[in-house]
């Protein structure tokens, strides 16, 4: 279950707290933003937008929705920035906002999307939809889409985007052990989807 199981994709974007000059630099930047400095706001945006957008795209799978989610995340973050107390890194707080906004958008688009629940994942494992769509990659993508949100978020953040359990736990506000358990369950569900293909 370690991170070494997964060859991380192009997550060579640094965790932005360092890019922004450390926690003290971060606090100074936040203070400038709260003073109404638009250049500082743009600096904050530039420091974090790539990671936020990447996470947004992984969660939505759609360019337009990812941009909408990214924009809404920053709008909400700027409007609530005064409430940020610095208990965690700004990036951690920002990803928390991203997930919250994503959850709202997910509800918004629920009617428009094919929702795959646990039963559907089980159906995939039994081979039901396999005849209709035999492509493994598509099956896996559908299975990941169909994971319950808490498992999907954990899987996407850890195995797809390369966040550490510590980072994910900070973002989700759960214990690291909970995070590991969720990832274990998520991977177990996905293995069920893979199993019929591995027998061939």
């Amino acid at each position, binding site marked *: 279950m370690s991170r070494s199981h*997964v060859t991380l994709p192009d997550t060579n974007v640094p965790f932005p707290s360092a890019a922004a000059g450390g926690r003290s630099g971060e606090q100074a930047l936040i203070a400038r933003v709260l003073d109404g400095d638009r250049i500082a706001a743009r600096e904050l945006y530039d420091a974090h*937008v790539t990671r936020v957008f990447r996470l947004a795209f992984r969660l939505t799978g759609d360019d337009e929705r990812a941009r909408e989610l990214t924009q809404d995340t920053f709008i909400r973050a700027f409007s609530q920035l005064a409430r940020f107390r610095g208990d965690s890194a700004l990036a951690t707080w920002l990803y928390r906002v991203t997930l919250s906004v994503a959850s709202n958008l997910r509800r918004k688009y629920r009617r428009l999307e094919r929702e795959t629940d646990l039963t559907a994942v089980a159906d995939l494992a039994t081979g039901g939809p396999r005849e209709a769509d035999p492509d493994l*990659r598509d099956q896996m993508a559908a299975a990941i889409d169909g994971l319950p949100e808490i498992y999907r978020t954990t899987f996407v953040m850890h195995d797809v985007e390369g966040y550490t359990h510590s980072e994910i736990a900070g973002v989700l506000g759960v214990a690291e052990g909970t995070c590991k358990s969720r990832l274990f369950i998520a991977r177990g569900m996905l293995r069920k989807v893979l199993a019929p293909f591995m027998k061939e």
Partner: protein
Amino acid sequence: MQDDRFEQPLQDAARAYHEPPELDAPTRDAMWEQIDARRAHGVSSRAWWAHPWVGIAATLIIGIGIGRFAPFDRGAPATPATTTVASANTASPLPALYEPTTSQYLGQTAALLVSLPAETHGGRADAQFISRATNLLLTTRLLLDSPAARDPKLRSLLDDLEPVLAQIVRLQAGENTTDLDLINQAMEQRDVMPRLRTAAADLSAD
């Protein structure tokens, strides 16, 4: 529990899952412009009723409702001899029972229409906004079927608002800006907002 056979396919799946495109500078700048503009206009996640215009619009429209309908109910309509809007006083009286609902409805509808540009992004509106529009559409249809619609001015307004609200409700499934354009066109062609302002001005002259 671990099975190495699954690791490579899982890695592949993870790598391929919703692989993000490169965030190029134009896209980054375009998103920032949207964010900066929305911040400048004070559009945030705060509750819709916290926006200043809601109070203004609600006050305005409730004033219209009270000003228009209260005299009828008293059976002694104000009859300024010089007014140019005397036609309003030829209307059937609005039953007192419907006054609060009508006033509330007019205020909420005005607030919704005023907020339409800010609440729609890429031709879509969020679920809360759509829910408000749906409730107002239902109220519109109930009022149209009620004795309140005996007032010709109110009926005319309800007749015009009904298709506008119906189109707003459709924005929940909108994939482009066409529906929004149609709404704006309908509002312009029917002079919905100017008529509300004119009505307010007429009433203030009574």
